[in-house]
C-alpha cells in the first residue's frame, strides 16, 4: 500500500509538471503536443535515441548510488563529481599506459585503479569528518574544484596525447566497452552499472555492512555502544561511495570516449545527486529517478533537434519538471499531510 503510493505520487507529479510545461509552451507559442511527442521520441524511439538515454542513464545511476551510500552513514557527499573525474583519469591512465596486457586483466586493472583512486579521494573528507568533525559539504564542494584542476593539469601536461585537444592517448582497444545500438554511444557499461547497483542494493539491505552503515547513520552513539566503530564505518562508507564514483568515471571513459577528455563531465554527479535527493535517498526509487532524469535529458536533445522549440525553452521546461518532481507531498491530501506533520514534529527535536 505504502509503496504503491510512492510510485503513484511520482507519476502524478510527472503528469502535473508536464501539464505546467505545456502551459509554458503554449504561452510562448509552441505546440506542446508536438514537443512532448518529440521528447518521447527523443528518449525512446530509434537506436540513437534509446541508446542515448541508456548511455546517459549509466553515470546518473552510479553517481546517485554513490551519493546514497554515503548518505546511509549520514555523510552528505557532494564530492562524487571529483571522485568521478579522478576515477576516470585513473582508468584512462591504466588503459593507455599498460597496453599489451591481456584484455580481461587489463580491464579489471582499469576498474581497480578507478575504484582505488575514487575511494582514496573520498577518504579525505570522510576521515576529516569522522575524526575532526569537519563539515563534509564544505570540504567536498571545495575538493571538486581541486579534482578538476588535477585532471586538467594531467591531461594538458604529463598525460596529454599532444594532439591539440586536451585529452589523453586512447586506451587499449581491449579495455573499451563494447558499444551497442550504434550509432548511439550506449555501451556494455550499462550492465556493469546494473551489477554494481544490485550488489550495492544487496549490501545495503542484506548484509552486516549495510546494517552497520544504517546504524551509524541513524545513531552513531548507539552504534559505538553496541560495538560498531562509527568513525571506521563512516570512513568505510565514504570509501565505498568513492569507489562507486570512480567506477562511474571509469565506465564513462572506457564506454563513451575511449580516452580522458578534459572537463568531460559537466556536472554528471550533480545530476546524480539530484536524482538521489528527490527520492530522499530511497535506494529502491533511485534507479527510477535516475532513469527519469536520463529520459528527460536525452528527450530534451530530441526536442531540440526536431522541433522549433529553442534549447533555452527546452531547458526551462526540464527545470520546471524537476522542481515539481522534488515536491514529495504534492499529492498527499491536506488532512493526511497535517497528520504526517504532527507525527514528525512530535519526535523529539534535533538537538545536536
Amino acid at each position: 500500500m505504502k509503496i504503491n503510493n510512492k510510485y503513484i505520487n511520482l507519476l502524478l507529479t510527472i503528469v502535473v509538471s508536464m501539464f505546467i510545461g505545456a502551459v509554458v509552451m503554449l504561452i510562448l507559442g509552441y505546440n506542446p503536443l508536438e514537443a512532448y511527442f518529440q521528447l518521447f521520441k527523443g528518449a525512446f524511439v530509434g537506436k540513437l535515441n534509446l541508446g542515448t538515454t541508456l548511455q546517459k542513464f549509466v553515470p546518473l545511476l552510479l553517481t546517485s548510488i554513490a551519493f546514497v551510500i554515503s548518505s546511509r552513514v549520514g555523510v552528505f557527499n557532494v564530492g562524487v563529481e571529483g571522485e568521478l573525474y579522478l576515477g576516470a583519469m585513473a582508468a584512462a591512465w591504466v588503459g593507455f599506459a599498460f597496453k599489451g596486457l591481456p584484455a580481461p586483466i587489463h580491464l579489471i586493472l582499469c576498474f581497480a585503479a578507478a575504484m582505488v583512486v575514487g575511494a582514496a579521494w573520498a577518504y579525505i573528507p570522510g576521515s576529516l569528518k569522522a575524526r575532526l568533525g569537519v563539515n563534509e559539504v564544505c570540504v567536498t564542494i571545495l575538493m571538486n574544484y581541486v579534482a578538476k584542476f588535477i585532471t586538467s593539469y594531467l591531461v594538458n601536461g604529463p598525460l596529454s596525447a599532444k594532439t591539440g585537444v586536451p585529452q589523453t592517448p586512447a586506451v587499449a582497444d581491449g579495455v573499451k566497452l563494447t558499444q551497442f545500438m550504434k550509432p548511439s554511444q550506449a555501451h556494455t557499461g550499462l550492465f556493469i552499472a546494473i551489477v554494481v547497483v544490485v550488489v550495492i542494493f544487496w549490501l545495503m539491505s542484506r548484509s552486516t555492512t549495510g546494517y552497520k552503515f544504517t546504524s551509524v547513520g541513524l545513531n552513531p552513539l548507539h552504534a559505538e555502544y553496541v560495538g560498531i566503530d562509527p568513525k571506521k564505518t563512516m570512513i568505510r562508507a565514504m570509501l565505498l561511495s568513492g569507489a562507486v564514483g570512480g567506477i562511474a568515471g571509469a565506465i564513462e571513459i572506457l564506454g563513451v570516449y575511449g580516452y580522458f577528455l578534459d572537463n568531460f563531465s559537466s556536472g554528471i554527479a550533480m545530476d546524480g545527486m539530484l536524482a538521489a535527493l528527490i527520492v530522499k535517498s530511497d535506494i529502491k526509487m533511485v534507479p527510477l529517478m535516475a532513469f527519469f532524469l536520463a529520459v528527460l535529458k536525452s528527450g530534451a536533445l530530441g526536442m531540440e533537434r526536431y522541433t522549433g522549440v529553442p534549447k533555452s525553452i527546452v531547458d526551462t521546461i526540464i527545470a520546471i519538471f524537476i522542481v515539481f518532481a522534488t515536491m514529495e507531498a504534492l499529492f498527499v491530501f491536506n488532512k493526511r499531510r497535517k497528520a504526517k506533520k504532527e507525527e514528525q514534529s512530535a519526535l523529539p527535536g534535533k538537538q545536536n
Partner: protein
Amino acid sequence: GCGSKSSGSSAPAESGTSESKAPADKPLKVALIYAGFLGDKSFNDSAHEGALRAKEELGIELKEMESKEPTEWESNFVAMAADGYDLVIGVSTQFQEIMTKHCPEFPNTKFALIDGVVEGDNIVSSTFAQNEGSFLAGAAAAMFTTKTDIPGVNADKTIGWVGGMDIPVLHDFFIGYEQGAKYVDPEIKILQSFAGTFNDPLKGKELTIAQYSQGADIVMNVASGTGTGILEAAKEQGKFAVGVDLNQDDVYPGSILTSMLKRVDQATYLAIESVVKGTFEGGKTTYLDISNGGVSLTDMSTMKTALGDKFPQDILDKITELEAKVKSGEIKVNAYEGFGRK
C-alpha cells in the same frame, strides 16, 4: 558591439523544422554542431556569423546544435548526419575524434571540421595559425606599453596575457604572443595567467586587474566567455586590452588596441560555399594563416578615433612590416606541440 550582431540567431533555429519532403531543388541542408554555446563572443559566434552569411548569400537551410556536455556532442553530430543533412560541420577541435569515428559511416554526407584536421574522403578540415596572429598582437602590445604619452600607459616594459582554460591551443596563442613581443623588445616582461574556465568573466576581470597592478598596461584576451571580463577590466581601470577571434575593438572603444582575428567565419563560409558551388574536395585541409588572411589584426581604426593624434602610428607601420616578413617566411613563428602547418 558584437552583442547585437548575433541577435538573429533565433531565426535559423526555427528554420530547422524540417518540412523535409521538398522538391529536388531544395536548398542545401547544413548543420553546425558546437562544442559549447553561442554567445561566447568569439569562436562559436564567429562560426555562426559565417554560417549566417552563407545562409544569406547562398540560400542554405541551417540548423545549429549547441551543448556543453561532451557526450552530447557526439550524439548531436550523429543525429544530424543520420537525419539527412548534406553538410555537417563540427565547430571545434573537439570534434576530431568524433568525426574520425563516425564520418566513414555516412559516405553520402559531407563533413567539415573547423580548427582541426581529420582525414577522410568526405571531410574538409581547416586549421588556423593562431600563433602567427598572436605574434602580431604581441608585437603591437610590446610597442604600445612604452607609449607613456597615452594616459594609462606606464613606462614599465610589461604586458599581460590572460587565457581561459589551460589547454594546448592557448599555448599556441601564447607562444606567438611571446615571440612577437620579444621580437620588438627582448627585455619585455610578459605576465601569463589562466582563469581555468572559459565562462567566468569575473575571474577574467580579477586576473586582468592583478596583471595591471603588477605593471602591465595592456593585456591580451584569449579566454572566450571569460574574456568579456578582461575587456571590461581594461575599460574600468583605464588600461588596455587586445581582443581575440572576432573584432572586439568596439566593445569598449578606446580601451581595446586591436583584436587578433581568427577567421572562423571565413572557414565556415568557405566550407559551405565549396559544397554549394560543387568544389568540395574531400580530404583537403585549409590552413588559414597570415598569408591568406585567415588570421590578422584589426586595422585599429577604433583606437585611432579614440586617441586622435596621440595614436602611435608607428605600431601600425611596424605591424604591416612584420606581416610581410611572416608572409615571406623571413620570420618563422614558433608553434606549440601539435600545432602549426601539417
